[in-house]
């Protein structure tokens, strides 16, 4: 695992990696270790942080434990981020690969299609989709995936276009290998590094999108999420700053950690300086 080694030699990326590991631990084990339900009223409303020893971050407008909300929200943030990214990859990679490999009218058609998705303001599109299909964890994940795949398709297309005329690919064609084989075994493995880098950054963006949707009241009503907590506390910001402050820190920290890991991966996998990104 030379990639992990390279990553951990980069201090900033290592920091991101550690934070991310902690967050994953909280997401998996948090709800078992911290059993207070984020929905249950545990004390009087609007209790500031540190006032009560068992309620470190205080209570919200309905007397619910803020820390419990943060712990339970971790899981949904990471899960939505991860799954929507995976779906986006499942859409973007095949589209980009066929456009880039076959070229011609296939490329033309697929890219026009992608362009439409890229032109449309993505957050507005996500809002519309979630609103009309009723907010739920499924509609949110799907909406985020639907607005996130175009950059993947473009990236994969670019890589395929560059690689399809590489001599080793030409040699594979001369060897009588099928298109299917060439795409999967010759080209795809060589495009993985930029895809991995992009995916790690996409998870970060997806988490931001999820929290923004929840903030607007488009979160799954069954699940406590960081964005929802901030949204619900928006109107009482003057009285209770901590209700918005801590969930925001949680989001920023998670997204930052993912971005740092993404940057680190980029430096480890693509030694050339290539920091720009499409988002």
């Amino acid at each position, binding site marked *: 695992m030379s990639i992990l080694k390279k990553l951990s030699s980069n201090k900033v990326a290592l920091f991101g990696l550690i934070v991310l590991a902690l967050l994953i631990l909280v997401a998996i084990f948090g709800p078992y270790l911290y059993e207070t339900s984020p929905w249950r009223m545990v004390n009087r409303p609007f209790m500031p942080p540190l006032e009560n020893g068992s309620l470190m971050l205080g209570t919200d407008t309905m007397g619910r434990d803020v820390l419990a909300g943060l712990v339970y929200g971790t899981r949904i943030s990471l899960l939505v981020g991860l799954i929507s990214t995976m779906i986006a990859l499942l859409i973007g990679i095949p589209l980009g690969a066929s456009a880039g490999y076959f070229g011609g009218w296939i490329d033309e058609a697929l890219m026009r299609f992608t362009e439409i998705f890229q032109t449309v303001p993505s957050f507005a599109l996500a809002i519309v989709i979630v609103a009309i299909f009723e907010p739920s964890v499924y509609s949110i994940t799907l909406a985020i995936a639907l607005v996130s795949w175009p950059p993947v398709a473009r990236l994969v297309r670019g890589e395929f276009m560059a690689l399809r005329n*590489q001599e*080793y690919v030409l*040699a*594979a*064609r*001369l*060897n*009588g*290998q099928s298109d299917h084989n060439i795409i999967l075994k010759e080209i795809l493995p060589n495009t993985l590094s930029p895809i991995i880098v992009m995916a790690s950054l996409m998870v970060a963006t997806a988490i931001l999108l999820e929290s923004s949707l929840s903030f607007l009241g488009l979160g799954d009503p069954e699940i406590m999420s960081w964005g929802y907590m901030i949204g619900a506390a928006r109107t009482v910001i003057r009285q209770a700053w901590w209700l918005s402050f801590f969930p925001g820190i949680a989001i920023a920290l998670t997204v930052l950690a993912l971005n740092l890991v993404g940057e680190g991966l980029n430096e480890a996998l693509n030694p050339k300086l290539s920091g720009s990104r499409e988002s």
Partner: protein
Amino acid sequence: MKPLLKVEDLSIRLPEGADRPYAVQNLSYALNPGEILCVVGESGSGKSMTANAIMGLLPKAIQAERGAITFDGHDLVSLEERRARKMRGNRISMIFQEPMTALNPLMRIEDQIGEVFLIHSDMSKQQRQARTLELLKDVGLPDPEKAMKVYPHQLSGGQRQRVMIAMALALEPSILIADEPTTALDVTTQAQILHLIKELQRKHGTAVMFITHDFGVVAEIADRVVVMQYGKMVEIGDAQQVLNDPQHDYTKKLIAAVPPLVAPEREVQDRSKQRPALSVKSLCKTYVSPGSWFKPGRTVHAARDVNFDLYRGETLGLVGESGSGKSTVSRCIVRLLESDSGEILLDGDAIQDLDNKALAPYRKKIQMVFQDPYASLNPRKTVGRIIADGPIAQGVPVAEAMQRAKELLALVELPETALDRYPHEFSGGQRQRVGIARALAHNPQVLVADEAISALDVSVQAQILELIDTLKKKLNLAVLFVVHDLRVAAQVCDRIIVMKHGQIVEAGETKAVFEDPQHDYTRNLIESIPGADWRSGHQPQPAVGKIA
């Protein structure tokens, strides 16, 4: 004669982690007024480093550690930046290897040249313009008035290099440093640029420091030569003496690796009774650059009515400059490109219209060796899989294919242990051997070598050429050798075909074509080869090594 510029005991340290501690070490030589001094060496010899030090263009991480570069009473190594800047582009100027990227794409030619006057003189706008026009005329640009107003992308590579030369000579510098200025150019353009540099150098009495890897170029223009290896100067002397009577072993080796420009006597076989392994009839291929609704597309004829036969046991050279269509033809033949019309007969069967499925059995009969040994092997596959995957795709059982791969490795003189290793563990020459093994995995009749040696160092080139020649004899292959280097073509081909703008302008036995070219273009091509008179068989050969 008092030297114009003196490099004394110069050492330039490389950053840690480089393959050696010094880029150049204890280097001393002098540049005399009005001479052309060629600095020769292979890639990584440190030959460009001194030039960059003179110009103050060394990267920040690399600094001169010791020594001096004396010019006009100043030491350029220790001279403060502000004063050094006054020399740059004024007293000493430089041109570079890549004319395509050396000019700012967003500025008109006029402004880029004018900038030199703006920095170093107080000429008025009219004066600057007049002088720029004069310069563009001097460097022989067609329609210099128009050239003033265009952007770089509207000029060809050769034209851009002329602009660079105009810019460098704008203030009549004492020294012109030329860093491989013709390496990226075609042979005829190269000849013109070399001629231009020589002519302007004579006219203005400029001293030229010409950096190159090509001994042909040295023979063409050098007065004196410095030979470099691993950052050290191994030989210095007059051009004639170094070229024809080299003293150092390394110089001898380098010169011996330059194929002489004379086709050896070859046994001529009458093959008219044989059936050709490959027969190309009236092959045509045009590219239409995509226009749009308002602009018609541009049509380029990459192949126009191309005809030839290729027999087993012979090597046929397909030569031409870039854009001649030689690569297009070779790719149409192996069906990597679809031809527009004409016939491609492989072992008697027409293959040009077969679909992928029907083509599969014919793929085995014709295979290709590619140009770039670094790009032609999938970095994520073991050498064994690279060789065996073709036969496996065609239905050969894995174990059998791997066994065969082992035999093929032996055939191309690589150890059996290579089987499980990845391409990055091998050198360029070794990789090219793997590429050849892959091409032979199907037992082809026809082998197309597409510039198969042009990315290799000269000494490695000879070995690969020898290998291909041995295999040709051993396996009775028909070899189509696509090559731009006429020196190589003269050595390895039984017959050659010369192409220009998609058409065959001349075809014949190699010796005949070289000794008595029929077509003007062929003649021009041969005459353009730098150092054509040198090592043409009329002078004694240095007595080292043998050329494959």
